[in-house]
């Protein structure tokens, strides 16, 4: 009899534990890692160290925000890294006209690539992974054709964008924070945000109930392209050099990882913006921690692999 009660309790407890892990697991993991570092990592609380970590993770955070929207529609955007490279190429090509026009051209370029992917997905009906794979290959090539090798630049305004701080916080971190708030607002409080989630949840039901499915899909990919291009410009500004050959390589995988570790299901219908940012921070903090404690790169990658699997296992849809 006693045994039965215990079993009954466990049976009730188990889904609750899973639900808790799904909702707060990534926060708990970040907190635990922070605590570990405060206790065991020398100089971890130094402002300089903190700033470096934040600046390094900024491009991934910005790209992840767009990726979270795309994944919310049951899509995926593999082209983001190549879009960053294209933006890096465009920004130095047009830097002669001033940093702001150059930034606008670069971001517009990202929007065009996003629109191309979005049109293939929404209007032609190509699978997101193939449509954006074609762009990943082609756009990286285009960026390399435009700027064949690494180009350093001396534009003080663009360099300031990458390296200046307000009240000790780097400007690019502030931009990423502001964008996070905007995307959070869009997802939670706007009609568009609700449409994105609805389409990801059930596309045919959304079509039947009269939602502008194709237009929303197109917009989501355009936003992803815009954000990736902006991340590319900011990363270029920080590096003080345009490097279309290697900028943003594999960032699509980091962004997808951040989104997934944050508990947004790849099956769509749910977008967790803050958890996505936490996911990006978690992966960054993890690799920083392992490096600080003299564990090699190989370990970092293997531990990341385990964390991705564990996170997806914990947050997968219950069958």
């Amino acid at each position: 009899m006693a045994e039965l009660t215990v079993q009954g309790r466990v049976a009730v407890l188990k889904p609750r534990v899973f639900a808790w892990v799904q909702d707060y697991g990534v926060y708990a993991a970040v907190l635990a890692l922070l605590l570990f570092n405060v206790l065991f990592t020398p100089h971890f609380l130094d402002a300089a160290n903190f700033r470096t970590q934040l600046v390094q993770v900024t491009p991934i955070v910005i790209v992840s925000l767009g990726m979270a929207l795309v994944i919310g529609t049951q899509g995926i955007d593999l082209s983001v890294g190549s879009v960053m490279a294209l933006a890096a190429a465009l920004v130095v090509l047009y830097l002669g006209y001033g940093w702001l026009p150059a930034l606008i051209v670069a971001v517009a370029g990202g929007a065009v690539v996003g629109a191309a992917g979005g049109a293939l997905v929404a209007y032609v009906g190509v699978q997101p992974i193939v449509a954006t794979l074609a762009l990943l290959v082609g756009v990286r090539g285009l960026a390399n054709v435009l700027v064949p090798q690494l180009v350093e630049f001396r534009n003080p305004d663009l360099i300031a964008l990458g390296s200046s701080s307000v009240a000790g916080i780097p400007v690019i971190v502030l931009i990423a924070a502001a964008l996070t708030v905007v995307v959070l607002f869009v997802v939670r409080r706007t009609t568009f945000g609700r449409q994105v989630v609805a389409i990801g949840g059930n596309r045919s039901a959304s079509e039947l109930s009269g939602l502008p499915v194709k237009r929303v899909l197109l917009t989501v990919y355009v936003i992803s392209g815009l954000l990736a291009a902006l991340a590319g410009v900011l990363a270029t500004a920080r590096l003080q050099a345009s490097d279309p050959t290697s900028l943003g390589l594999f960032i699509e995988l980091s962004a997808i990882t951040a989104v997934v570790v944050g508990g947004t299901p790849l099956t769509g219908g749910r977008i967790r913006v803050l958890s996505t940012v936490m996911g990006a921070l978690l992966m960054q903090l993890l690799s920083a921690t392992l490096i600080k404690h003299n564990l090699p790169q190989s370990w970092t990658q293997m531990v990341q692999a385990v964390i991705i699997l564990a996170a997806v296992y914990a947050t997968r849809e219950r069958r």
Partner: protein
Amino acid sequence: MNREQVSRILQQHGAMMVLGLLVIVGSLAFDSFATPENAASVVVSSSFLAIIAIGMTFVIISGGIDLSVGSLFVLGGVLAAYGSQYGLIVALLLPLAVCGVVGLLQGLVIARTGMAPFIVTLAGLLGVRGLMLAISNEGATTYLVKNRAFATLGQGELLGLSYPVHITIVLALLAMVLLQRTGFGQNVYAIGGNEQAAAFMGVPVVRTKVYVYVMSALLAGLAGALNAARLSSGVTILGIGLELDAIAAVVIGGTLLTGGAGGITGTVAGVLLLGVIQSLINQVGSLTSAFQQVVSGMFLALVVVAQRLLSKAQRLT
């Protein structure tokens, strides 16, 4: 011949037709294109991608995807070069054993937990590259191939073509038979077409999926081992983005990423098509290799749009 038949033929053999067309155009435009030397160089450089893409074809037909093959290719190469100091057998068995185990683990996780293949093999991509870095001293140690017999496997020639090409041809023929003429092949198509229906009809879904991922990993490891034999060393910086090339070749070859349809002939044509595009761009000389990416990307986009339109045409009739 009605419209449905036309579109089906285009879907299945489109890559082959475009390949033929490109070869004809290339031979007319460039004297140095249609030479035995150039053909041999295209075929040899395509053979490693072809071996990987054969495994990827099975995975994609089953409705899955395998992002880990690029990392497995490098790991296979490093392990083969390391193992070659103990002889030919170890040089071949070590990479196959390790890659096979990785494939087995990935397949079991995908088939048993229902987690998305994209994520599981993405973790595989990271984890396997980490493993490769760990055994190569963070990429600092390049193991040289010490065994003559093993090096011959990558460098030797027969009838003017190097051994990896012959191995690729044999593997492609075996894969074709396996896919078209066996119950296993039928199961792969059935699962990709409709997994639930396949399960109801008694198709061993879990086992078939596990086999498919094991096969993909084994082929990627073998391609890596052969490549190490050809280069005489286990280079640690190869294989980046190779999974995407393989997926692109499979898709260009007419295999649908939604699963359930496609074949080996198309995949081989897709690989050769990418190789011929590269070769044509080399012929032009003034174009950089970046153009190859632009053309490949545009080509991939064109092909998927065409596929989509063709499959619509098929459904309408």
